[in-house]
């Protein structure tokens, strides 16, 4: 059975007496429904609540321990302080062994033991470092911590632990440099290896419990980590290509939600659908400005002719993202006819626009291409909504067109004359579509 909305189930159960009274359902049928939903409903919420409180409890204890030990006790000798640093680690290991032996079947116990252990690793290293005035760089600390935490994630099959691991990899890639925030170094490409180390655990979670909130949390952490890693990779590889690689990224996010999680909840689309829409529309709007294509880098030979192996590797990763988006879109086109696949056209459109900009160095045509893409996306979504009678979708299509209109209103590159004509056209389009919607609804 699909994971139903619990509120929906509750509503249905509350309706039952009335349905029986009015003769819509027989008493037996109502009882059968009640039993069916009681059976599927009872286990899940209590389990989630228990897991959540176990996780929250262990996080609080972990944080408390960190605060206590961070209170640098200078009246204690070094050996005593070191002993204190090791105590939470050893205790958490003892708890972990107990859980492996006796509570291995309980998700809450496993999550709690794993989180405590992961926190204790960081605490021990940090406190020893403080005691001995060991400086070391932050990125290396995070890296060691995460690599020590990774086996725990696998042994205890913990969603939160895996999410923490992905976040840790993100923190590593963001802190692994001496220069300015986006002054990346080829070293950063290792982050893909770090992320790959966590992927089998993620796949195991997907297989086991794909529609749970734990899996969603892990997937979100992975997506955030991938976004930051891709940003760093763009700095190393072909720099102007970020337009394409991020178009591909958001396309993948959208497709993951729209095409592979159709069974998420009965009444709602997967959160990645919304995230994908937001990403695609934001980036497309940005790229619809001529200014975003105006860069000196088109002339820069470095852009497409990397000199060292990390640059080539980075460019390969960028292109791999684009290929992944295109293949994913093709797969979805072949398998999933029922979902709106128009947003997935963003990746190829961005690539074509980038190619034109690269060849001509002229920002006009790429920006026009993005404008047409957004307009087409808006109209397609609008018509799709009208045909299938979904008002929300039709309105969303109009919203896309409206976003495009607002963007052009603030566009300094367009003359007032052009803007005027464009606005009149969009206005006429609005009136026309509304007319069509309401005529169809009146007829229906």
């Amino acid at each position, binding site marked *: 059975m699909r994971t139903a909305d619990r509120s929906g189930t509750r509503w249905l159960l509350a309706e039952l007496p009335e349905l029986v009274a009015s003769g819509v359902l027989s008493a037996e049928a109502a009882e059968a429904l009640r039993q069916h939903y009681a059976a599927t409903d009872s286990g899940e919420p209590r389990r989630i609540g228990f897991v959540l409180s176990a996780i929250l409890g262990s996080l609080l204890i972990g944080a408390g321990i960190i605060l206590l030990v961070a*209170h*640098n006790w200078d009246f204690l000798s070094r050996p005593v302080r070191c002993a204190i640093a090791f105590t939470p680690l050893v205790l958490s290991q003892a708890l972990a*062994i107990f859980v*492996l032996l006796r509570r291995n079947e309980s998700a809450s116990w496993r999550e709690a033991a794993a989180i405590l252990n992961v926190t204790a*690793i960081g605490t*021990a290293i940090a406190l020893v470092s403080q005691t*001995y005035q060991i*400086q070391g760089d932050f990125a290396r600390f995070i890296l060691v911590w995460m690599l*020590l935490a990774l*086996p725990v994630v696998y042994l205890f099959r913990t969603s939160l632990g895996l999410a923490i691991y992905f976040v840790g990899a993100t923190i590593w890639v963001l802190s692994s440099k001496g220069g300015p925030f986006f002054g990346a170094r080829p070293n950063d490409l290792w982050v893909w290896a770090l992320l790959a180390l966590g992927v089998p655990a993620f796949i195991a979670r997907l297989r086991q419990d794909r529609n749970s909130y734990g899996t969603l949390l892990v997937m979100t952490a992975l997506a955030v980590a991938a976004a930051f890693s891709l940003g760093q990779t763009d700095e190393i590889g072909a720099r102007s290509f970020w337009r394409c690689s991020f178009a591909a990224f958001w396309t993948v996010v959208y497709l993951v939600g729209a095409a592979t999680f159709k069974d998420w909840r009965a009444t709602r689309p997967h959160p990645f659908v919304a995230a994908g829409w937001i990403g695609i529309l934001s980036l497309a709007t940005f790229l619809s400005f001529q200014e975003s294509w105006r860069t000196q880098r088109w002339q820069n030979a470095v852009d497409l002719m990397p000199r060292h192996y990390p640059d080539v590797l980075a460019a390969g990763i960028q292109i791999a993202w684009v290929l992944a988006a295109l293949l994913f879109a093709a797969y979805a086109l072949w398998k999933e006819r029922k979902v709106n696949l128009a947003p997935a056209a963003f990746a190829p459109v961005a690539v074509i626009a980038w190619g034109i900009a690269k060849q001509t160095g002229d920002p006009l045509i790429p920006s026009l291409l993005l404008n047409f893409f957004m307009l087409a996306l808006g109209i397609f979504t609008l018509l799709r909504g009208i045909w299938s009678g979904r008002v929300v979708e039709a309105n969303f299509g109009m919203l896309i067109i409206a976003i495009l209109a607002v963007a052009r209103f603030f566009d300094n590159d367009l003359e007032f004359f052009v803007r005027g004509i464009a606005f009149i056209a969009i206005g006429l389009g609005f009136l026309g579509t509304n007319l069509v919607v309401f005529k169809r609804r009146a007829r229906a």
Partner: protein
Amino acid sequence: MKSWRLLVFAVVSLAQLAVPASLIWKREQTLRHGSVWKFRTAPVDPVDAFRGRYVALEFEAEGQAISPPPNFAYDQRVFVTLRLNAEGFAEIDQALPSRPAVDDFIEAQLRGNTVSLPFDKYWVTERDAPAAEAAYRAQSRRDKQNAFCTVRVFRGDAALEQLYLDGQPLGEYLRANAAPK
């Protein structure tokens, strides 16, 4: 089923314990066998010196121009040997591309034609923090430079031992100069 998990976790536990233990062991080696060098602090921007619970340290030696190994990039790791200056403080002798055969060298990062030393924080207790901040500022101004750190140096590792203000260890200095309540 259970036994392999236990076995793997036993190995993982050992690794978890080994990392902080190796930090301690390495530092103990340095503290035991390393020779003491005095690094004079550089004048600091008072606003920037104190961050939460540690004193941000800068050293005169970090402003000293050196000749980096050829073809070395910014931020690359170099091995720095030391010498004493006329006042008895440490100075950078050479920045080398590989480990020298002596015991007294530090791993540092190249910053153009200067180096960044691998110690720039001095952790203090929550209780002492505000007083330490004020004292370090007062003793490390441009016109009055009276702060230095003792550092034990042993085969690349540098263990920050003590921050001295006006010739006294930080703790003693704070007790001696405590504001009457």
